[in-house]
């Protein structure tokens, strides 16, 4: 067919000729310019990227021309566009033959590609990731991609993510938190939760998965880590006895109070609020079986535990002492047979509260 095109008489030869100038540079080792990569990741157009590079003073440093900078930027952008498909499944980046990229550069490409803005992530926490609410955001696409990839997988979420996306451990943990929140749909947007950062929630998610998920107990768990195990949540209802049985509640209180007397500065407040606090702490868990109530997990913790303590001026140390004793005491309660479950439950709750207890 090019035979025809190539023949002088038949070949269409528009006045415009070349539609655009051709200008490419291809290295046997793929050149990656970190600055341009950042600009590309930030969503700048070629023109914007060139403008920014100009402001960076590269012209003066290298004594080159704007045209050269444009050509260079376009080359990099094309490379990144071709790489993007591979970045969606980073293990393929390692196996592919098209681009020869040294391993440390590959790692950098992936890490930067999956890095996200915590403010944005904070906003999206707990929202549904399966459907595109914010299509325009690449970061959101990354969340969705990771979510989709690990949704059905068993085993520790963060490890799965790390394996599938070759992310550094801390970044993988953050993604695990995002997936966890998206699965459980915790409410994080309420005004009274605004003081909590993404890092706070990520830490909470990690504690919850660490203590509550099946993976935490048995490596070959049947359910994905991203979902809290149903049986566990069901079992939590058993703990209600701690607040519904008046005897147990009183004994619990006296055990904790006697252990803390003289040891914390807010002893009086503790004595006065113990029952309310205990009810809140136990009920938060009891409600986790209902999807609608799950949403309120953090709201409840803040509203019913953190805010009262804060207004009574508990120090973080006070809270820690209290929670330690509060968790340990039921061991000595006659007739309470759920100590193991209770400690597993309280381990995550304690970690979350301590993390969240700040201004």
């Amino acid at each position, binding site marked *: *067919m*090019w*035979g*025809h*095109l*190539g*023949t*002088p008489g038949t*070949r*269409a*030869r*528009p006045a*415009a*000729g*070349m*539609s*655009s*100038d*051709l*200008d*490419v*540079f*291809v*290295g*046997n*080792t793929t*050149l990656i310019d970190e600055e341009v990569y950042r600009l590309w990741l930030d969503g700048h157009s070629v023109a914007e990227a060139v403008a920014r590079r100009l402001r960076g003073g590269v012209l003066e440093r*290298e*004594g*080159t*021309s704007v*045209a*050269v*900078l444009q*050509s*260079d930027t*376009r*080359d990099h952008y*094309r*490379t990144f*566009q*071709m790489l993007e498909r591979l970045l969606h499944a980073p293990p*393929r980046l*390692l*196996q*592919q*033959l*098209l*681009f*020869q990229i*040294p*391993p*440390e550069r*590959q790692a950098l490409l992936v890490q930067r590609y999956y890095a996200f803005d915590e403010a944005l992530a904070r906003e999206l926490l707990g929202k549904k990731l399966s459907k595109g609410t914010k299509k325009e955001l690449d970061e959101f696409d990354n969340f969705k991609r990771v979510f989709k990839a690990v949704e059905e997988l068993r085993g520790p979420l963060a490890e799965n993510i790390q394996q599938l996306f070759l992310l550094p451990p801390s970044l993988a943990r953050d993604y695990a938190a995002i997936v966890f929140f998206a699965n459980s749909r915790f409410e994080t947007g309420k005004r009274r939760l605004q003081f909590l950062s993404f890092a706070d929630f990520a830490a909470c998610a990690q504690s919850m998965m660490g203590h509550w998920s099946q993976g935490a107990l048995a490596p070959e768990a049947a359910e994905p880590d991203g979902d809290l195990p149903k049986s566990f949540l069901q079992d939590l209802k058993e703990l209600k006895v701690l607040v519904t049985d008046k005897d147990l509640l009183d004994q619990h209180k006296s055990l904790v109070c006697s252990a803390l007397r003289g040891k914390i500065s807010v002893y009086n407040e503790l004595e006065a609020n113990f029952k309310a606090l205990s009810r809140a702490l136990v009920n938060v868990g009891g409600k986790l079986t209902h999807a609608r109530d799950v949403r309120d997990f953090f709201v409840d913790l803040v509203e019913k535990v953190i805010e009262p303590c804060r207004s009574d001026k508990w120090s973080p140390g006070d809270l820690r002492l209290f929670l330690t004793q509060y968790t340990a005491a039921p061991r000595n309660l006659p007739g309470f047979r759920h100590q193991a479950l209770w400690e597993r439950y309280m381990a995550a709750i304690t970690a979350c509260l301590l993390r969240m207890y700040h201004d």
Partner: protein
Amino acid sequence: MPGKLKVKIVAGRHLPVMDRASDLTDAFVEVKFGNTTFKTDVYPKSLNPQWNSEWFKFEVDDEELQDEPLQITVLDHDTYSANDAIGKVYIDIDPLLYSEAATVISGWFPIYDTIHGIRGEINVVVKVDLFNDLNRFRQSSCGVKFFCTTSIPKCYRAVIIHGFVEELVVNEDPEYQWIDRIRTPRASNEARQRLISLMSGELQRKIGLKVLEMRGNAVVGYLQCFDLEGESGLVVRAIGTACTLDKLSNTSAFLPACNSPSKEMKEIPFNEDPNPNTYSSGPSTPLKNQTYSFSPSKSYSRQSSSSDTDLSLTPKTGMGSGSAGKEGGPFKTLLRQQTQSALEQREFPFFTLTTFPPGFLVHVGGVVSARSVKLLDRIHNPDEPETRDAWWAEIRQEIKSHAKALGCHAVVGYSESTSICEEVCILSASGTAAVLNPRFLQDGTMEGCLEQRIEEASPPGCGFCHIPYDELNMPFPAHLTYCYNCRKQKVPDVLFTTIDLPVEAIVVGKGCLIQARLCRLKKKAQAEANATSISNLLPFMEYEVHTQLMNKLKLRGMNALFGLRIQITVGENMLMGLASATGVYLAALPTPGGIQIAGKTPNDGTYEQHISHMQKKINDTIAKNKELYEINPPELPEEIIGSPIPEPRQRSRLLRSQSESSDEVTELDLSHGKKDAFVLEIDDTDAMEDVHSLLTDVPPPSGFYSCNTEIMPGINNWTPEIQMFTAVRVSRLSNINPTNQTLNKNFNDLCENLLKSLYFKLRSMVPCCLCHVNFTVALPEDELVQIAVTAVAITYDKNQALQASKAPTEKSQQRASTDNEEQLQFPLELCSDPLSSQPFSPAKEVLEGASSHTGIPAAQRATSVDYSSFADRCNSWIELIKLKAQTIRRGSIKTTTSLEKASPLAEGYLRHRSVPSCTNSTVSVVKMTPLSFLPGAKITKYLGIINMFFIRETTSLREEGGVSGFLHAFIAEVFAMVRAHVAALGGNAVVSYIMKQCVFMENPNKNQAQCLINVSGDAVIFVRESELEMLPVQPSTAAPQPTSSAGDVTT
């Protein structure tokens, strides 16, 4: 039935989704060789099929083995309709046909489709069992090794260099057959790829047969090209140098280097080169001859053979003819006769090598070139491609006669090329006329005494510069002086060559890339009228290119060009000339004079002022360049320089070519006068423009050097950090009413901007040198120019560079010792860091003994630095010569010392080498380089030639990112396929890589584009020198020069 080909299909991965419904693919594989096809089972519903097939066995004769590629097609099984092709892999099994290369091909290959590009990968294992005595089957030439490398490959020794082999095969281009009107683009592209693959195989086999006839066992400097002649057909042609090579593995033969009394041993010479490539050899005189060499005049007509003109020039200096002038005379005659006998039985005493074993190149006469314009006609009988053969034979004959005119019997650095536009074709050939040492050309004919004389007569550092022609009967007017190095022989004032700088050459300062660029408008015309007008333009273009080169060379204060390559490209309405070369200052040649501008109308005051302003600018530029390239030759007092040679003209006028008439052209006087006397006469505005344009070449930014040869003169401390790249640009030259001047300017800007862009891209590698910068120009359409550049950027160590420039001897010393190392052959044991501070071990002494022979140049280098200091005390030639002789002796002692002193470098290097190399990627790294070596590494095995041809086409150009997106992806795919093939052969690098063709066409209206790319190179295994050193045996020898910086590298 002498061979059994066995193929196993293991698995696939990352296949494309072929069934939209299931998002999966039911893949199977067809394995085809010749007319036999096998199929694997269908592996259902997977993008990562595991076929694990049985061994498919093809019983074939070895002729077929050589010609046919193995063709693997991956398909998607479809129960109800035709199976869809996913893509193909072509595997050239040639590397499996000779014993020293690869034994198995095994690995992941990209699955390639001409419309979609790479679509997943397939894992394949291929083996060949050969039966019988291969050589009994005369139709095949299994066993002949092919190398693209234009020097004797390391790890081999040349026993004999037989000479030129060439062959061409023609066929109809499938794209122009009637069937192309009804088949799909994919089918058409695949037919073409397959045909070219077949033709390449056939061509290689035929060349192999010729080599066997000559009793050789290898082809070095193998260059194969395609001519896409459109309607008239497809030509695949190849040239190379037949050699008998010996693998350097059983060393014992060479060990005696120092003990054996025999002369040959003493010179150690022939062994090939240890250091990859560092050797090159010599150039010679300027292009002078060149003017004579084009013979465009009548050659365009179909049957006619060309040029009568040039023949008339030849007789003057036929071989052996001249009176013997001065000392060199009788010897020269003798040498000539000897060489002649060695060469005379050859039709064309041509060598495609650009780098030679030490001692091979005796003298260099200058560049010889020939061009001829032909009208293409349909090739009626593909089996008898006489017309094309005759065309080339004609050109070669012309080259041969030019060489004779220069008193040379051989042509080295020889290459051929074509440029085609519609039905007009320009055939070009060029090379460097040279006198060779017959020792290497024949078995056993070495005559000791003659060799002796050669050695005496031509010191290696400057001998190649000495004129081979008879000075009293010179083929062209030239200014001769006594050699500034040895004072014994005459040298020209400027030397142009197509070869690499010989290792032993004594150079002052650094080199640089020099380009001459030129456009000439031409009327659109048909057929003969077109050919005639092209023929008429060619002489002027050659002349102007030559003038530009000369001016630019002077502007840089240099006196010789190496690696000169002049391309003339023909388009519909213009011709373009692009010459690239590496300029250097050879210590043996006189200091170039400056450039003087002479005005034509001296009465006009403002004009005068302008002239003097220009003159000042030129002088400033020269001064700046001398500083930049560190050109500080020792000053010689005038009386010493003053030679007894009669000088025909002190100042010669340069006629501008505008001045018409081809008769005049042959009379052009290209001798550029004396030292101070290069005069540019400004007789019109064009000349003014030319002067301006001279000054527009911007030197590379600091930290960058560039050259188009293998090694950069003056830099010798490479690190292993290399980056090979290809850049392609297509640009519109001019819009309305283009004139030659505006076109020239645009073209010039295009090239300069491209270079600037490369420097910017590679800025992170500074300090660095772009080596083997290879520009290719095409004119795809009216006013559109396509420039493709392939080169390698190599980082060097700046600190070491400083030291090295203080001790220029080091380089050659190291090289010399490297040679020895190779000869000595216990590579693992010996190749330690030579610089390492270990004092004298006996082994070291042996080496030094050896290097005092091979290393003569080093000694001279040292001397060249300081002889000026006593030169003023000398009153006569004789005294000077005597003194010099002494210095040489002293010099060699000095050299030894400098070697030891160098140990601080070694320490630095040791420090570095512990840097761990990062390798946990699953894909093995394959380096690619246009050079014949890898800095800091040793090539341990050649696995075979890579010669690949790909077509890529799209009907969704915009969607693929426009022309740039399309070509960017395609080039990346080509690199990937080359790397995959090399890795499957067990290699980790391609050396002497070249992109021979990149033909790009687009039709934006139809949203279509097509591109053809042809690449080649040598697949090798290399070992880092630092790794070699880790081996337990601690050596005491010198390590090859590139090592010195081995470590820095990857940090």
